[in-house]
């Protein structure tokens, strides 16, 4: 039995559940946090989404089929939670998601939890010009250096499609950087 299988069994056992869950969070909190933060940008929003992600993992651990790796499953939940979050935020402000992201990028420098320089801000704006799926692929590959086969499990997309998507994303961002 692998460490992951052992952890999953402990998570499904009410007696060991809490301790195992604490270990799970310790193991993945930072990776998931940064994945979420790249989507929602603000720390407070990322914190909300991270907590919701872990709560969903806890509540749905019994439906985890073990067809994929546990962390891929958790990444999927985190991605869905983050996208749902910004969709709701956009709906509340009566704007579409791309408009919201442009606003978020424009006001990034006002965030006390952001210390990026001009080029980093420009990069963020360039990422927000991409379609949603390409944004995810670019973030996972460029910042998190996730392998394509792992990314394939998280985003439920073929490796070939992911490679093509990343290539297109890189080209678009390069063009944006050159033109700004």
């Amino acid at each position: 039995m692998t460490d992951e299988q052992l952890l999953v069994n402990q998570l499904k056992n009410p007696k060991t559940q809490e301790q195992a869950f604490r270990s799970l969070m310790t193991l993945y909190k930072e990776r998931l946090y940064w994945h979420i933060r790249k989507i929602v940008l603000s720390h407070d929003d990322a914190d909300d989404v991270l907590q919701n992600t872990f709560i969903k993992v806890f509540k749905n651990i019994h439906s985890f089929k073990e067809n994929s790796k546990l962390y891929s499953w958790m990444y999927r939940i985190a991605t869905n939670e983050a996208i749902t979050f910004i969709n709701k935020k956009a709906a509340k402000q009566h704007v579409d998601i791309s408009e919201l992201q442009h606003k978020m990028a424009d006001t990034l420098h006002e965030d006390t939890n952001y210390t990026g320089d001009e080029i980093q801000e420009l990069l963020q704006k360039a990422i927000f010009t991409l379609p949603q799926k390409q944004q995810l692929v670019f973030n996972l590959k460029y910042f998190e250096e996730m392998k394509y086969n792992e990314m394939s499990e998280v985003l439920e997309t073929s490796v070939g499609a992911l490679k093509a998507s990343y290539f297109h994303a890189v080209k678009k961002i390069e063009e944006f950087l050159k033109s700004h």
Partner: protein
Amino acid sequence: MNKEDLHKIAPKLSEISLKKTGFKIPANYFETVEDAVIAELKAEKLQQKQVENPFKTPENYFNSLEDIVLTKLKAEAIQKNNINEEISDTYFANVEDAVFNKINSTSKVISLKSKIIKYVAPISIAASLLLIFTLNTNSNKVTFDSLASSEIENWINTNNIDIDALSIAAMFPEIELTTEIDSKSLSDDEVANYLTDEDLESIIFEN
């Protein structure tokens, strides 16, 4: 795509350091994540317990509620319709008169007209017939007893005498009726026959 490939197709992007994203987190944030999530889960569980309603309902109560309510509404509607039928709008305005009419009707007052028809008219007819027979015959001794009822009837029929109660009353204004006919003196059959023969509505209006 490795760093060399990235530099080839996107030189500007490859210049940006991957490690410096500019995103910061509050101090000690990651040390508090587990406690925050577990506290959130416990709070949620506690809230769920508080939300749980201690009051129970009988089994299938909510499944049958619509039928019960509809049945009650129908029953109320039927009852309301019955009340409307039984009590007219003017019922309470006329109830005193109705009561007095009932009280008066218990003494069985019979109208003068009907009394004339029933009792006085035959007597009057008989008297006038007696007078006619007396005048028309040479016999000096004609009495009621000497005339059979059938002879009187035949005479009326053969002579086509059309005579009604009012005509007779007009012919004999001197006849005074000072006493009421006691209802006790009338048999049930007589009353029944009378009510059958007469138009009941006209009697009610006359009274």
